[in-house]
Structures are given as C-alpha cells and as structure tokens.
C-alpha cells in the first residue's frame, strides 16, 4: 500500500474549503442583501402597520378609542371573517366595518343582507363609491374628496352637535333619502351620513374619513366625542377588519373550479409526481464532466473560386467569355493530336487545315471555322450545343 500513499493527487475537484473560499463573497453579499431588505421592510412598514386595529397602539391604530369605550362599559370584539361579523349583528351591537373597500361585491351584498334590519348600528369607515352603494343604499359617494379635513357639524344629529368640529373631511356623500342626517358638509356635500333602517331603530352611519378613530388624532377637535358617541350607542362593539384569508371571499354561488372537483388524492399524487419530475430533471441535468473545447480546422474548398467564377459568368450571361474559354481549351487539346505546335493552336490558318486532313470524313471547313473560331453564341441553348459540338469534334479527332 506504500505505492498508493506516494501517488500524487490528481483530483481536480474543488475541496470543501475551496468551495467555501470561492462562494463566501457571494454568500456574504446575499446575506447582506437579505438583512438590508428585512431592515428596510421593518422600517418602512411601521407607519401603516395595524391601521384601524383596536389592538394597535401605533400612530394609525385605534387602541385609544377602544380603551375609552371599555371605560364606558362598551365591549369591543375584533372579527376578521364575514361569517363572524354577520353572526355578531344584533340590536345591542354596533358593527364597525374598518375598510369596506377590501370586501368583494358578493361579500358586501352578503353583509348588507345580514345586517339590515338587525336593529343595531353599522358604521362604515370611508367606503368608496362602489361599496357605499351596496352597503348603504340611499347614499352616493362623490368622486371629488373634501379639501379640508376639519369640518363643523352643521346638522341636527345630536351626536354631531355635541361633538362640534371634527376631522371627518375625506370622501363626500349625498343622501337620496329624506330621512337621512347629513352632517359635516364640505361644499354642501356631507362627510358623515346617518341613514336609519326602514324598520326598527337600527341605522347605518357612513363616515368620510377614518381620522377620528386614529390614536394620533383622537384628542384633536371633537374627534373623541364624535367617535365615542357613534360607537358607544350600543353595549357591544364588533370591529370587523376584512382580511384576505376570509373563506367567504369566494362567492358561494360561483361555479366550482376544476381543482375543487378533483379528488384530493389526484392533486397530492400529482404533487409527488412533480417532485419526481424535479428529481428526474436534476438527474438528467448533471453531466459526466464538461464539454471539451477544440480549435476547428479551416474548411475552405479549394475549388471555391472556380465555382464563384462560374456563378459570376452565369449571372452576367458572359456567354462570350465562356465560349472563348471552351474553344480555347479544345483548341489547345486538339493541336498536339493533329500535329500542330501548341503555340500555333490559336491560329486558324495553322490548325484548321491540319484538322481537316486528320479527320476521317472531312466536313465543311466553314462549319469547323465557325465552331472553333466563330462568334459567341446568342443564347444559353446555343452555348450548351457549342460545348457538345466541341466534345463531339474532339472525340472524332481522338478516334483511331
């Protein structure tokens, strides 16, 4: 075994240390990038985190108003699904819908039908034009928002009268029902609308801006008073924060998708097959060593220039040149056969008599002159026949 021990290592694969040395720069860069991304995300997400959440103490959270309500004996419960919100609706309950625009049309209709005539109060925080039509029929949102945020009540609603000026400036609404209370107008369009239910003593309140509920602005103007009066009219407050994970987001009356109809065994079996496909791809992707490069030799055919010249003749219809070349080469070949020196091959007076003398059946001397020394052929057919005739003449001369 001593010989094996002395064998020099021929391995060319990188060792684990080399792999680490090579990749640590990239790994370090990736880690830095990840850390930076997380840091930026944490910093940037601060301001919008927990908006309108009664558990949040952030700038835009609503913990303060929930605490104030608790002091006054109003219990606050947070729900995130439509089913819970519907179940909670009742005559002794205020339902606050935090961001009505996040609900789908189907959910909005469902919520409206579930809460209408429940006898309780429904408070919609800054619904857009499409949501307000479904959730509070009889109220229409104006596309132009209010310029001022602080407005004075200017209406007969007792809560608003007591609260005085408040930060309700946001989306502006018009009520089409005569029994609706329109408060806090900005340019004659209200930013707070109370629509009583058609039966019972329930009502729907539409609020143009969420500012009065924020921790940050609760203590300004009459915000706190307005918020407490609007939310504290019933002993229970249900705070509905619409979430994307709500299963009711898919409309129940929609057609079931292809995947809902498949038995789950097929789906999971396909997932396992997909894993197998990935393994197969990895199996096929790994090569047994890299390709070997090699300089290729030059590949030029030696006859390329001649072929090019032939194509040029053809393109230019150079029948004169072609015929001259063919005749000249035939004359050069014929001259030694009939005993004329090659230097005299292109002289008709030397070649033609010798040729006629040599031939077994001397033809027309004029025709032979035209064949070997005549004018260039007029068209391609004549050129082809000229070549054939020259061949025939040569065969005739060569015949013993």
């Amino acid at each position, binding site marked *: 075994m001593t010989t094996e021990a002395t064998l020099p290592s021929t391995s*060319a694969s990188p060792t684990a240390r080399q792999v680490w040395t090579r990749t640590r720069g990239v790994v370090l860069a990736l880690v830095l990038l990840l850390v930076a991304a997380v840091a930026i995300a944490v910093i940037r997400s601060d301001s919008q985190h927990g908006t309108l959440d009664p558990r949040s103490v952030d700038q835009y959270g609503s913990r303060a108003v929930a605490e104030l309500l608790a002091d006054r004996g109003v219990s606050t419960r947070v729900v995130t699904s439509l089913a819970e919100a519907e179940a909670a609706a009742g005559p002794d309950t205020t339902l606050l819908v935090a961001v009505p625009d996040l609900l789908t049309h189907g959910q909005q209709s469902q919520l409206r039908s579930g809460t209408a005539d429940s006898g309780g109060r429904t408070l919609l925080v800054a619904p857009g034009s499409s949501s307000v039509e479904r959730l509070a029929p009889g109220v229409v949102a104006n596309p132009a928002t209010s310029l001022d945020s602080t407005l004075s009540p200017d209406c007969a609603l007792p809560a608003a009268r007591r609260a005085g000026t408040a930060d309700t400036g946001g989306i502006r609404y018009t009520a089409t029902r005569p029994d609706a209370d329109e408060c806090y107008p900005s340019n004659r369009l209200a930013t707070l609308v109370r629509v009583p239910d058609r039966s019972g003593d329930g009502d729907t309140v539409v609020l143009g801006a969420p500012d009065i509920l924020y921790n940050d602005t609760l203590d300004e103007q009459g915000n706190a008073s307005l918020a407490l009066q609007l939310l504290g009219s019933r002993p229970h407050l249900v705070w509905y924060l619409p979430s994307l994970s709500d299963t009711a987001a898919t409309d129940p009356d929609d057609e079931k998708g292809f995947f809902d109809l498949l038995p*789950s065994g097929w789906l999971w079996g396909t997932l*396992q097959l997909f894993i*197998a496909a990935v393994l197969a791809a990895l199996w096929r992707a790994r090569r047994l*060593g890299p390709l070997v490069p090699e300089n290729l030799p030059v590949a*030029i055919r030696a006859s390329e220039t001649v072929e090019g010249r032939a194509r040029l003749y053809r393109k230019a219809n150079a029948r004169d040149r072609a015929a001259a070349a*063919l005749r000249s080469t035939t004359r050069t070949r014929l001259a030694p056969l009939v005993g004329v020196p090659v230097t005299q091959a292109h002289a008709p007076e030397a070649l033609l008599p010798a040729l006629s003398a040599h031939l077994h059946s001397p033809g027309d001397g004029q025709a032979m002159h035209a064949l070997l020394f005549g004018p260039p052929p007029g068209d391609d057919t004549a050129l082809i026949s000229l070549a054939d005739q020259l061949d025939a003449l040569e065969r005739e001369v060569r015949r013993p």
Partner: protein
Amino acid sequence: MALTGRAALLAALGSLPVGIWDPGWTGILAVNAPLAVACACDFALAAPVRRLGLTRSGDTSVRLGDTADVTLTITNPTRRPLRAHLRDAWPPSTWLPGTEVAASRHRLTVPAGERRRVTTRLRPTRRGDRQSDRVTIRSYGPLGLLSRQGTHTVPWTVRVLPPFTSRKHLPSKLARLRELDGRTSVLTRGEGTEFDSLREYVPGDDTRSIDWRATARQTTVAVRTWRPERDRHILLVLDTGRTSAGRVGDAPRLDASMDAALLLAALASRAGDRVDLLAYDRRVRALVQGRTAGDVLPSLVNAMATLEPELVETDARSLTATALRSAPRRSLIVLLTTLDAAPVEEGLLPVLSQLTQRHTILLASVADPHIAGMATARGNTESVYEAAAAAQAQAERHRTAEQLRRHGVTVVDATPDDLAPALADAYLALKAAGRL
C-alpha cells in the same frame, strides 16, 4: 453529487401511496423523507472520488487512421468498494464522429484497496497533438440512488502523425532506384554520372563500359559501373500559407503535400541523399536539418504532425531567403506550393532567379480533381458555365506552369492521389539525368 434515474423513479412510484392512502402533507413526507434518508446513506457509502489514484500509460503517437490505446489505472485506497462510471475526456477529433460517447465512457468496479485498468481506444480524425482532458468519475453507492462525482486531471498527449498513405508506392519506386543504381540482377548498365566501381565482365554487359586499363592490370576483363550521384542535398519546402488550407476532397492541400514530401524523403534517404525540411509561411513553422538516413523519416513525420495551414499570404521573398540559408550547398529544392496564378506571379516569380542560380528547383502542386470534373460537365446552362470557368482556371494553371518551366523549374501538377508517385518519378528522372 449526482442523482440517478432510480431516485426519480422511486419518487414517481411514491405518487401512488400518496394519492391512494394518504393525500396530504403527511403522505408527501412519508414518501420523501425515507427516500432522502436512503439517498444520504447511499452518498455516505459511495467511495470518495477525491482519494482515488489515477495514472496513465500507453501509446504516445499514432498514425492518422490507426487506433491508439491509452490505459488508465485506477487505484482505490479507500475501504469502500468503488462502483463507478468513468469518462475519459479527449478533444472531439480524437474519435470518429458519433462514437465519442461509447469510446470515452467506461463502467468499472474496484474492490477496496485494489486497482483496475481501463483502456480508452482513440481513433483520431486529424493530425496534431491530442491532449487528454479531465477524467470524470461518478461513484455510486450500494443502492444506486445518489452518487459522488469528481474529476481528476491526468495529463497525456498522443501525437497524431501524418498517415503517409503513399508508402504503398515506395517498393516500386525503390525498385526503379535500384535499376538506376546498377545493382540489379538484370545487369543493365547504371545510368548516372558518378563512377562507382570495377567489376568482372559478364556476358551481356555493354562493351563500351569495359575499362581497358584495369583489364590490362588484371587477368579478367573489368567493366566500370556507374551509379547516380549520392550524398546530394534535398530541401523540402512546405508552403503552409493560405493556399495550402484549401480542401481538396476531404483534406487540406497541405496534407497531400506532406504525403508527397514523405514519399520523396523516404526514397531519397534510401538513395543516399540528405533530406531537410522547411515549413514556412511568414515565419518558420518547422525546420528539420542534418538528420541521418535512418532518422530522417521519423523526425520529418514528427515535425509535420503539428503543422496546420495558416490563413496568411506566404511571404515568398523571406521564404526564398530562408531556403537559401538552409541550403548552403547546391541542392534540389522541392517547393510544395500552389500553381495559382496570383501568388506565383506576384510572389515566387520575381525571386525565382535567386533560387535557380545555384539550385535545382522542383515545384509540386496539388490539383483539384473537382475542377477536372467540372471541366467535363455538360448538359445544362449551369454545368456549361462551370465547365467554362474550370477550363479557364486550368488554362491559367498551365500558363503559370509554362512560365515556371521557362525559368528552368520542373513542375509537377497532380491530384492528391497521384502527387506522391508523380513527385517521386520527377525526382528519379532528375537523378537519372544527373541534374542533382
């Protein structure tokens, strides 16, 4: 690390239990976790590739067209048996197209602490040096699910020599040479100009060759024998410029020239002449000088092995100067170059007189049989134009050859198959005429 098809197949079969018994993440985990564990075990049990010892032995040179065997010895110093696929990688032109994969892959098993040999059979398709690339080994575990893969570098060079296909002409040319030498049993009187020896007269000898003075000293009639000159210098000049790159048939002109040069060198070294080689385009590509008769052919073949045509115009002036420097004595200079009109008229002709002053010049050029075929094409317009162009080209070649002949150069213009015998004949004719 490399997966095998078996692992993928097992994963695919796992979709049945997942789909039938336990659809869900538990089922997926129950199938894939044991598979992953099995793969890990397999990987751990496979012999490590890094610690294998590899050495090479075998052929270092091969004629183009023959096969060379290069042996790789794999030593397994580990305590685990090695079951492996091995790829002995060489450049693509080391094998016939289409056979690379089969020829380079080997499957082998080396028990722990033992060594095994695998032989890679090379069949190069081009001249030159072939250097082995990496040896890649994929070592499988007992289950054949996951393998270790690694590479080793075990350098080896196989020099691919010119095929020298024209050596089949050598016996006939040597017989002709012996006739010239006056050593044949036919007892024809040797042609040539150099006095060789006296020998006893046998009936049939030319009476004119009786040396009367020697006869007077001896009791028998003595005749003089003559032999061609010996110990002449021959300089083979290979033009490796752009004109040698053009392909005639399947090989560049340079290869046909080399073949002819090798036959001439073999013949001349047997005839007792000294043969040198110069390969030149704008600088010296190869120079073989002052070799003994027994050594000249191997050194020529070796020098020619790595020559490749260069895509530059040959500098005829410096080529001439180098040739004159390489041939200080009166020599036969064999120029293996082209007869194309432009390079000859602009390059060679102006400086030809410097060469012809002291030396005998033999110029050999490779003709293209394809052009000869084109010249006889008939039947349609295209063929006739091709015939005309080919006739024109041939006429130009003849004209150039005539010009060279007027300068006293012997010109050989033949197709690749005929060039080597034609050049040998021209050499023998010059030798017979005593013009060396």
